[in-house]
């Protein structure tokens, strides 16, 4: 489903990613761990077609990242710490805008999603009036609006309150149950180890660990992260 082969990315002299290779199968839940600056966000940006790799090959759902980026974008849902929402538009208008961009019917999908993320009663309110947690919940609705086969989540829990984080975790569980592939970057080792089936660890742009979560202990992973930070 996700095939990454010798991906590298550099910004001037700064080598953000170096020869990263891995595969993620359909329905797999992979977590990417790493200290700040390890290259997690750069990797997600490349896989979500927001950034081009300097070298290497990647395919998503069989589509080449460089040649078929439009096809890839219709199969992926992306959520980051930025909500990608227009503050001057209402929650409903934001979702309607993205629904039309994905060519999906507006109703009942949008209303149903607003119910799921607990914002139906605020659907006519401007996003500017929403708290950070509410914006992230709406952002999640935006990311799954077109029922993507692959979810790319870049530190989605950053700045979320407990309620919003629980809602997001439940939605990820539901997505996994529906055979959605999830690739998530996080600093939360406990969460990743308890939920993900696969752990990838990045250090200075290189893949230093790629193992099933059950083969690793939380202490080992934490120690590796501490070592890589020092």
């Amino acid at each position: 489903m996700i095939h990454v082969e010798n991906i590298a990315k550099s910004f001037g002299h700064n080598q953000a990613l170096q020869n990263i290779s891995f595969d993620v199968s359909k329905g797999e839940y992979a977590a990417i761990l790493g200290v700040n600056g390890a290259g997690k966000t750069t990797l997600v940006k490349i896989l979500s077609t927001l950034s081009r790799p300097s070298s290497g090959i990647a395919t998503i759902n069989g589509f080449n990242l460089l040649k078929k980026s439009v096809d890839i974008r219709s199969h992926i849902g992306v959520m980051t710490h930025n909500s990608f929402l227009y503050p001057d538009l209402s929650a409903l208008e934001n979702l309607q805008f993205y629904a039309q961009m994905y060519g999906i019917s507006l109703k009942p999908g949008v209303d149903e999603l607003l119910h799921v993320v607990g914002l139906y009663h605020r659907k006519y309110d401007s996003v500017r009036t929403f708290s950070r947690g509410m914006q992230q919940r709406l952002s999640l609705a935006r990311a799954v609006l077109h029922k993507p086969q692959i979810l790319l989540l870049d530190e989605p829990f950053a700045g979320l309150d407990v309620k919003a984080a629980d809602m997001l975790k439940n939605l990820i569980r539901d997505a996994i149950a529906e055979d959605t592939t999830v690739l998530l970057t996080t600093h939360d080792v406990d969460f990743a180890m308890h939920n993900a089936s696969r752990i990838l660890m990045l250090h200075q742009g290189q893949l230093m660990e790629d193992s099933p979560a059950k083969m690793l202990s939380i202490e080992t992973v934490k120690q590796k992260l501490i070592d890589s930070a020092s």
Partner: protein
Amino acid sequence: MNTATQIWTIIRKDVLVELRSKDIIISMLVFGLIVLAVFNFVFEPGSSALRQTVPGILWVAILFAGNLGLHRSSVREFENAMIQGVLLCPIDRSYIYIAKVTSNVIFMIGMEIIILPVMVVFFDLTVSDLLPFLGVLFLGTLGFAGVGSLFSTMSAQTKSREIMLPVLLFPICVPIILAATKSTAVLLDSQNTQDIGMWIRLLIGFDAIFLVVCFLLFDYVLEE
């Protein structure tokens, strides 16, 4: 997905956001009206000097106000990385450029609709003076917004974005500015209409070249 529907969806979103915030139109209008007012103080009403300078005054007001509007339009998209939400949609990025140019032309025309009657009053013109000039106004606006949509997207990603846009935009737009001001001067003069065809052909030619080149380059200026 229907590309035309996607382009229309982006345009509608841009217009809706502007109707709510009004920051592009208001900033352009205030600037344009100040320029007209200042020049109005300089010249005697009805003087031949005024008549000769009207094309320049008009285009200074439109282009500088347009520069402000283009800047606001792009910066708004890059605030909170909202542009990335659009970039993640299944649409070829060059078509996003078409939508952005159209939105910016709509905003500039909105500003011009208010500025033109003010010009008629300030500079002792008649409505019949301006009617033949509307086509030139549209072509000049289209060319300027076409190049400006690309450069404002580039400059919005830089630190010195306010300075970067006019520095990049105005030198590139010289052929459009030249053809637009010369056509306007000929049309307002109404005595020497021989050159008008040449200037309008030049304007159309540069519009076409710039729009095609910017359409092809837009994907790359969004690249990180």
